[in-house]
């Protein structure tokens, strides 16, 4: 099987999976009792408006909620595929809401991912090659602290400390008033000033797990026979360490790169809420709370698409990286 053929096969499967997922998402978001119109009616009534049965029916017809559920699904699905994700309950196009937040989300996620790997991989290698040394215990300790501290708590502590000692408000990605300005050096610097604290918070949580994975897989590989073979050939320990065991120990990490795609959206939601970051996580959260059907469905759908693409991407990267996987799948 050629690589192209393999890719097409994977994409066809992915498409089928997405159809099933889209139906499930659509159904689940509709599940809570009542619908958006009920809530609009309640809100208006609370303000003293008198809403007749006809008004309610007209609202339902306007949102398409009078049709059977499967018809609603097809209408939504065709719209979604053609790129129109509908409007949020506040009347803003969903496309606009999402694209506004996508850049910030990706910026934060990708930078924190790079920092995570840049820290975790070398520390993991150090810990494995110096197993049970003082350094290993130190990093294990730091790692577990990072793993055990709830992210949002760390975020709150940092917010408090910066406010108390430096008088800084570090919420959001820009200082008040800067966001609306056109891009300039000052705006970029302001962004960088705000960016590093959320990155610290996110990285602290992610690094610990990655260190543990790297340490454990590398320890496993260091005990393999091929390490002894390489030593018997006369290789320096350092030469063989990076050529053989580290290379193999990176397998799960290479594979997991694909899984960051779905995390772009819902990962770190609580931190984003606490730190007032304009990412997609809080948007999804509030959409779900408000039963904003079109917004929530769209975000969940995009997340699912990213997840499926991420898995394919991870598999492709791993098969490029590891010949055994390539052969197993019969791809040349």
């Amino acid at each position: 099987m050629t690589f192209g053929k393999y890719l097409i096969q994977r994409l066809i499967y992915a498409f089928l999976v997405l159809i099933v997922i889209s139906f499930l998402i659509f159904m689940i978001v509709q599940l809570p009792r009542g619908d958006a119109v009920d809530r609009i009616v309640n809100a208006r009534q609370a303000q003293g408006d008198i809403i007749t049965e006809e008004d309610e029916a007209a609202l339902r017809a306007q949102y398409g909620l009078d049709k059977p559920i499967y018809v609603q699904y097809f209408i939504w699905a065709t719209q979604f595929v053609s790129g129109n994700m509908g409007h949020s309950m506040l009347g803003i196009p969903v496309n606009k809401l999402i694209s506004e937040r996508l850049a910030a989300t990706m910026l934060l996620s990708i930078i924190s991912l790079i920092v995570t790997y840049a820290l975790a991989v070398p520390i993991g290698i150090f810990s494995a090659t110096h197993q049970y040394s003082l350094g290993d215990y130190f990093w294990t300790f730091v790692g577990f602290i990072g793993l055990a501290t709830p992210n949002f708590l760390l975020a709150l502590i940092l917010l408090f400390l910066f406010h108390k000692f430096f008088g800084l408000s570090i919420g959001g990605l820009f200082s008040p008033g800067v966001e609306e300005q056109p891009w300039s050096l000052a705006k970029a610097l302001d962004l960088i000033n705000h960016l590093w604290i959320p990155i610290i918070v996110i990285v602290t949580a992610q690094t610990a797990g990655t260190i543990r994975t790297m340490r454990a897989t590398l320890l496993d590989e260091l005990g393999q026979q091929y390490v002894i073979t390489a030593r018997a050939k006369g290789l320096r320990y350092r030469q063989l360490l990076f050529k053989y065991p580290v290379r193999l120990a990176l397998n799960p990490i290479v594979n997991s790169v694909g899984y960051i795609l779905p995390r772009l959206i819902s990962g770190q939601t609580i931190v984003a809420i606490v730190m007032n970051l304009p990412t997609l996580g809080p948007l999804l959260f509030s959409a779900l709370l408000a039963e904003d059907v079109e917004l929530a469905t769209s975000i969940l759908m995009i997340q699912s698409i990213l997840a499926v693409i991420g898995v394919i991407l991870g598999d492709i990267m791993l098969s490029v990286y590891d010949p055994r996987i390539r052969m197993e799948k019969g791809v040349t």
Partner: protein
Amino acid sequence: MMPDALLEVKDLHTYFELEEGTLKAVNGVSFTIRKNRTLGIVGESGCGKSVTAQSIMRITPTKNSSMRGQILLHHESGAVDVAQLDEDGDEMRDLRGRDIAMIFQEPMTAFSPVHTVGNQIMEALFVHGERDKRAARKRVIALLDEVGIPAPERRIDEYPFQLSGGMRQRSMIAMAIILNPRLLIADEPTTALDVTIQAQILRLMKRLQRDNGMAIMFITHDLGVIANMADDVAVMYLGKIVEYGASRQIFNDPKHPYTKGLMRSIPKFGTTIGKHLATIKGTVPVPLDPPDACPFANRCAEFIAGTCDVRMPAAVTVAPGHSVNCVLYE
């Protein structure tokens, strides 16, 4: 010292410090490997034969192992005591692969699964100074051909899992002999292979020994293979050599009760039909803080209480070049 000695091991001890105590894997072992000859080391699993090999290569796990004794590698200009070298130093690394090379039991795990066999064999040349990649590749293809791998110019770019077990072991042998080492240590090289492939690999090793003039230290638990391969034989039990001599002395006139037991346990064509094969009762104990006594005492059919369990018998020469450690011959 024998005039044709290549490697002399004198009173070698290799211990591992474990939480449970000191594991005396190799506990006072002496033998000589002669130039262009094969020394067979035979023993059950856990008798220390592999650790002996690793000690000679200085590739025992470093953190908790300790070593003492002499390992003299003779050159024209004199001898190097391998045991005194820094195991991570340049001198030792240069010796590995160039003077002493090693092949292993399971060629699947002994190769990295994600690098081509060509890459891994060529690496042996590169670490020992080869710079010319094209020349290295040519040399490897020629060598793969020599060890009997068909279509070597294609196989060189294949991964270990694409080769059969026999071909993997042939590649492993090619990797070991590419620098014409003077000593090849073979640690159970045929144990993982089926019998026909085993015979082919043994023939290959004998041919290479004849053509290249190298000594072989052949480690196995298979007496049939030893009989086929070895000029000299050392029988190891629980970290000690209990009997040592020329192959024909050991096979025709075994002295130690353990060696005799091993010989009895070989099925003989036609004579053991319908009978149970003789076994040695019990199992090899773990050499954790072993007492200073005959290691075989607790399983020996000729055990003498108050003698065998109180001291280690000295080596007794029963015939020229044939020695045994047993009180029966003292």
